[in-house]
């Protein structure tokens, strides 16, 4: 049997205020958890206090779990009080948050509470979840009571009593609260069916005592109607009328709550559906954007690769041309040395240099103003000059070279133009670049030098000029060239 333990309640209140202070000082999550456990334990007999705790923990919640639990306990308290309109927004929020943070336990618990409220209001739940065999004590009691009532309707009094007994066992240590009221309601119904109206009234009155703490109008309406029926059968018309009127006043309240709750359901469901829709479309929209981005980058990469590959192939072709040319030139020189060293060189490079930035002049068909002898003299001197390495001097110029070769600038320029197929600057540049490439071939340490050093080595004061000239003659920049040679030698090492 239920006994009201007011001393224990006082103790609870003291403990609670202590916990609340502790919590506000340290606001530790373990304290929050303990408070919420406490709130869940008292929700059946003191839902107002439970709600106060839940609201407090909600305010101080530092993580989602605490928030979800606080919302859920608050919603459950409102449910016990019959305030379905206040319970719904909280439990919807709890479920949403639980779903968001993958808290399956509370998603399920919130879903069950929503399901019960919807069922009570005769509203369709689109999700069609069915919750049987609840773990929540309040719902467990409700289920036993419902079964008891069903059996009572079929006049199976003993079976109904069996379920009442189950509820009593379940609630043994509990104070008289919502669950107690339900129990006494069923017991009242059973005695009423047995026509033991005095006992029936006693049980109903026991249940009514709960209404002082838990003003649940749904409970109130039911109980006062039943009490009125008892008085009617006991021929106490005055009390019948009084209790009927009380039941009516509860009915006004519950109609308002039902309407407000339906209004809430409308709002919350529409919001939920909208959100689900947004969520769904957001998934597809994001996927579309991601794929669009990937497809676009694939196209861009394709374009970049195409340009890069084409340029690299072009570069290698130019390099190959240069190297071939050099090879041929060397062969010609070797032959010349062997056969007749004084024969003028028909420059084969003219065509191939067409795409470099040098301005080839070509073999001049005009009759030369130079005498054959002096021309040969100049060519001989030039050959010496070519092998001397003096072209690497920084201040090398046409006039200087002319002075060195004991000729004038006009003759020298004409001789170079005619026999080398290029102007003086291009001639010097070619000598310098050929020289530095020769060095790189002979001495691998050159490959490790900086471009600026290489530039200085062959008489260029700035490495950018060197790079430009190198590229125009060889077809690739000095850095690429060095890398290419390094790669080649590596491969050779691997193959050998």
């Amino acid at each position: 049997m239920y006994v009201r333990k007011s001393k224990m309640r006082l103790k609870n209140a003291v403990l609670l205020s202590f916990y609340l202070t502790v919590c506000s000082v340290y606001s530790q999550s373990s304290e929050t958890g303990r408070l919420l456990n406490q709130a869940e334990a008292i929700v059946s007999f003191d839902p107002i206090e439970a709600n106060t705790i839940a609201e407090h923990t909600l305010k101080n919640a530092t993580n989602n779990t605490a928030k979800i639990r606080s919302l859920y306990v608050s919603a459950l308290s409102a449910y016990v009080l019959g305030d379905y309109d206040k319970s719904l927004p909280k439990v919807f929020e709890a479920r949403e948050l639980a779903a968001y943070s993958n808290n399956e336990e509370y998603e399920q618990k919130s879903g069950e509470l929503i399901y019960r409220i919807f069922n009570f209001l005769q509203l369709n739940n689109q999700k069609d979840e069915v919750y049987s065999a609840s773990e929540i004590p309040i719902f467990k009691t409700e289920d036993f009571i419902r079964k008891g009532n069903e059996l009572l309707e079929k006049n199976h009094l003993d079976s109904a009593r069996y379920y009442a007994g189950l509820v009593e066992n379940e609630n043994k240590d509990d104070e008289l609260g919502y669950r107690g009221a339900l129990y006494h309601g069923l017991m009242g119904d059973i005695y009423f069916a047995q026509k033991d109206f005095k006992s029936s009234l006693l049980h109903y009155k026991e249940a009514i005592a709960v209404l002082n703490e838990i003003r649940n109008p749904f409970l109130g309406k039911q109980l006062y109607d039943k009490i009125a029926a008892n008085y009617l059968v006991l021929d106490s018309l005055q009390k019948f009328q009084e209790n009927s009127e009380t039941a009516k006043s509860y009915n006004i309240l519950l109609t308002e709550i039902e309407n407000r709750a339906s209004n809430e359901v409308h709002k919350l469901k529409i919001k939920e559906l909208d959100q689900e829709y947004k969520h769904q479309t957001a998934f597809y929209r994001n996927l579309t954007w991601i794929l669009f981005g990937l497809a676009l980058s694939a196209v861009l990469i394709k374009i970049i690769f195409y340009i890069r590959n084409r340029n690299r192939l072009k570069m290698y072709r130019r390099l190959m041309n240069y190297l071939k040319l050099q090879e041929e030139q060397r062969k010609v020189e070797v032959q010349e040395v062997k056969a007749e060293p004084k024969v003028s060189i028909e420059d084969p490079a003219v065509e191939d240099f067409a795409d470099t930035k040098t301005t080839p002049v070509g073999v001049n068909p005009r009759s030369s103003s130079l005498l054959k002898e002096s021309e040969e003299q100049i060519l001989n001197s030039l050959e010496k000059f070519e092998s001397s390495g003096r072209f690497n001097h920084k201040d090398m110029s046409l006039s200087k070279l002319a002075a060195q070769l004991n000729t004038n600038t006009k003759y020298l320029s004409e001789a170079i133009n005619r026999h080398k197929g290029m102007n003086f600057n291009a001639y010097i540049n070619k000598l310098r670049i050929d020289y530095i490439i020769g060095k790189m071939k002979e001495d691998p340490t050159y490959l490790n030098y900086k471009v600026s050093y290489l530039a200085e080595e062959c008489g260029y004061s700035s490495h950018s000029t060197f790079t430009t000239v190198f590229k125009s003659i060889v077809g690739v920049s000095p850095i690429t060239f060095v890398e290419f040679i390094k790669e080649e030698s590596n491969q050779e090492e691997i193959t050998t």
Partner: protein
Amino acid sequence: MKKYLKYIKYVALGFFFVAINSTKAQSVEDSLYNSAVIYVYDDPLKAIEISEELMKMNENQPEKQIRVLLLITNSYASMRNYEKSLETALKAKEIVKKIKDPVQEFKILIKIAAQYHSLGVSDKALQILEESDKIFEKATNKSEMMFDMGSNYAIKGFIYSDQLSCDIAIEYFNKAIETYAQSGSEEERVKLNQSVVAYNKGNCYIALNDLHAAKMSYLESRELVKGTEANSLEAFSMKGLAEVLTLEGKYNEAITKLIDAEKIAGNVGDLELNSGIYRGLADNFLALKDWDNFQKFDKKYNESIQKIKISERNTINNILNSYNQEINQKEKSWKLKYLFLISVFGIVLLLGLYSIIKSEIIFRKKLRKLKSQIKF
């Protein structure tokens, strides 16, 4: 009991509504309006859609606009969108100010007050009724306003009886009945409204435990509609009489009355009325200790309560279902659109990747060939 009270108020409001309908001859506008009225409870969104069209058609006719706005208010209320409903009612009130005719303004204010009251916003309703009182005081042609003044008193009575202040409510109900009588309006209309008010007065007397006065009120209510087609009103007043008989301990007489009421109500098929009759029958059989009949009618009563609940939630269930379907439809078309785009971009991506890899392989081959030709 309060539930029947609520029902009967809507009956009254329904009469107000019909009254505006029948004043004008049928035109395109009127038929549109009437079709919107039909949709108010079955498809409120459709009703609002039609109403908005009507609003555009009647831009410079504030009286007609108000009529339509009240319809929109009703539609939103049936959708349970109370915020929108009240917002629309407020809009109607703004437009009322444009009307220079105090009689019209007065009538419309009464309608808005009735709307507020049915939405459960009693304080607003009272506020508007007070405004209408001021207009009535100043008016020179009071006789034209009498009928609506009767409704003014009736609504005040409803509000006070809701708040369990039956003493005040009864005063207003009496004033309402008197004022309706002075209105000189169509006799049947006057009688129907008087009957509704008298029935509610009877309920109030029961709450105050004045059985004799209650009986007189119910009898008055019944007399007023006897011989008319308002069957449900007659059944309601008979149910009220039976209640008095029960409280007097005359259970058998009460049962006879209730069975008569059930016969009349049977044609109407009104759930609230039926549930009240079953409840009365169950109570009286219980008092007579006739268990079989008690259980029979108690069961019927519980079933009817359940039916009422289901029917009350019908609108909201329908709205949610259709909204759900609408969203599903929208989702499907969106999905198709996105799936198309996704497959297009997917194909482009795959083709792009394939061509990148292929040309890279070709490029490497070419490069290798070139490099092998180069001798250093």
